[in-house]
């Protein structure tokens, strides 16, 4: 068996757009095979995962609710990945955003604090996520420690911190010993859009898409990111400070993950619990690559991947398929997207010319 790769000098733009879609289909067929091996009907799974949610107005709202944190986190990650930096700890930054923002909700609980509370919580959420994201960035810039390992280790630390708080000092004294905080006051709750379940977070996600499109396409900073990621040597000769870029992208992606965390807690859950995410921070990595690190692509990808969370929940109830199937699918999807990317990309050629480094 021998696979030989020839770099394409001129990959077609159409192939670039179609690659993620093809990857999605391949992953879907493979996941169907897994369902079949588990002794369930793949067609029934397709019905539950895709057709059901898409034909139900309630589920469509739910889809937006699930896609909101995914889009926010993935947009932030796209800054890092574009600069060829690997923040894989967004899950921890999400949790820390929720913790710092949630602190204000608990501190003002039962007081007559005005409607300034939830906007201030959002700011604290961004701050918490950004500071937590800066930790691996600073260790990388200052000591040359792998940002991959540090950001990942910090996920466990963040989850344990939240766990400690809601079981210890922040536990609702009237909560029958359940590990959860008090329910947030209305002033600490994100307003809903209209009568449904969609909250203001969806607006933030759309704004973040537009802002990212502007930053990446129209600013010097966006240009710097692209150069740093694609040609680090050229970036150094160009006088771009790679340390400053590292700190900036980690602060941005941490901040957006923190925003996603506090938005989820104050708009959706309404209190702090030991678990506040079904793995949004990790799934967002898949979303970012499925969206080709492009803001509008990420928006579309967050809806597509959001579907797998809703489908996963109904499949658990209707088909008795464990939620792990969703996780497995998301991993498979990421692998397929990267393979499809490799098949259309230029980057092979660039690395080969550069030699060993």
């Amino acid at each position, binding site marked *: 068996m021998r*696979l*030989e*790769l*020839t*770099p394409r000098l001129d990959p077609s733009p159409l192939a670039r757009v179609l690659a993620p879609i093809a990857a999605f289909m391949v992953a879907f067929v493979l996941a169907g095979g*897994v369902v079949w091996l*588990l002794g369930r009907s793949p067609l029934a799974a397709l019905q539950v995962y895709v057709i059901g949610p898409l034909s139900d107005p309630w589920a469509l709202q739910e889809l937006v609710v699930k896609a909101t944190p995914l889009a926010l986190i993935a947009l932030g990650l796209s800054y890092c990945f574009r600069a060829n930096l*690997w923040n*894989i700890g967004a899950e921890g930054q999400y949790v820390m955003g929720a913790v710092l923002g949630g602190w204000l909700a608990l501190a003002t609980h039962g007081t007559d604090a005005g409607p300034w509370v939830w906007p201030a919580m959002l700011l604290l959420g961004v701050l918490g996520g950004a500071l937590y994201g800066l930790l691996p960035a600073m*260790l990388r810039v200052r*000591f*040359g*420690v*792998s940002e*991959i*390992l*540090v950001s*990942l*280790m*910090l996920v*466990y*630390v963040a989850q*344990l*911190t939240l*766990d*400690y708080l809601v*079981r*210890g000092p922040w536990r609702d004294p009237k909560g029958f010993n359940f590990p959860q905080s008090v329910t947030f006051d209305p002033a600490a709750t994100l307003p809903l859009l209209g009568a449904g379940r969609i909250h203001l977070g969806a607006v933030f996600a759309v704004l973040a898409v537009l802002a990212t499109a502007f930053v990446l396409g129209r600013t010097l900073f966006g240009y710097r990111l692209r150069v740093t990621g694609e040609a680090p040597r050229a970036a150094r000769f160009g006088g771009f400070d790679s340390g400053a870029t590292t700190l900036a992208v980690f602060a941005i992606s941490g901040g957006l993950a923190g925003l996603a965390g506090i938005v989820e807690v104050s708009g959706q859950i309404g209190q702090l619990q030991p678990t506040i995410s079904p793995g949004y921070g*990790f799934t967002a*990595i*898949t979303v970012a*690559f499925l969206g080709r690190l492009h803001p509008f692509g990420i928006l579309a990808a967050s809806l597509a991947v959001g579907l797998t969370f809703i489908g996963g929940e109904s499949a658990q109830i209707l088909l008795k398929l*464990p*939620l*792990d*199937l*969703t*996780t*497995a*699918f*998301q*991993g*498979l999807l*990421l*692998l397929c997207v*990267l*393979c499809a*990317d*490799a*098949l259309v990309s230029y*980057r*092979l*050629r660039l*690395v*080969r010319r550069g*030699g*060993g*480094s």
Partner: protein
Amino acid sequence: MTAFEAILLTIVTASTPLLIAAMGELVAERSGVLNLGVEGMMAMGAACGFAAAVTFDSTIIGIAVGVLAGTAMAGLFALAVLGLAANQVGSGLALTIFGLGLSGLIGAPFVGARRDPVSPLAIPGLTDLPGVGRLMFGQDAFVYFSLALTVAVALFLGRSRSGLTLRAIGENHASAHALGLPVLRTRLLALLFGGACAGLAGVYLSLIYTRFWSPGMTAGRGWIALALVVFAAWRPAYALIGAYLFGTATVLQLHAQAGQIGLPAQLLSAAPYVATILALVLLSLGRGRAIGAPGSLGQPFVPER
């Protein structure tokens, strides 16, 4: 057996899976491939190995299936990063996410099942020696295997011709290719070895360490093994020391939790992860940046025609 001896014994059992997984990843990274999928391969080894051991009521079959599962996962990774030159960091993450999910699916019917303990080595006379007897001569076979593995990997990398080839490929794949060395084939074998080791480490967790399966039972050990390789500066002997340091930290943390010393359990549970970060920082303070990393680590290779 004194309490102190018991603690030493548990340190050995906590360190062994870290050592085995780190040894596999070390060889893969020395060949120039960064596989971040260790956690996923370990989870698959643990789930498949446990499922097979319960189904066939055989520890041996369980071990074999666990090793195969890890190897198969590594094969999938090799297909992406060697066959298609896909991004290694991203593909490794994908492998971890996929492995954690799939292991949950495979292990689901076996939640709640238990396996009997595997009988440790017993040499009449030696094992009964006071003090060092159990520690030196009363461990399970995996422990001795992991130590032999470390020696074998060290000899292979440092003293054999194939090891030299592997290291040359990891340092500079373009030059190695120009010399006619088989870059992709060597990397494939190194990756499969890494997968087999991760699978074995996973089996050890579910069949010996806990003797049951629960979703997410690897609890970041795959990531700690990855950190160990950096910590060890890609040298087998240092990885051995590192694995036992981390194993000790884990066990002391567990005893501190059981001993009610007044610190929150979560703080102690976070200790191994914080210790990993601190170790990486201290190490870089000690010897400058990333010394010892293979030159071509993490870079895709497409052969020149």
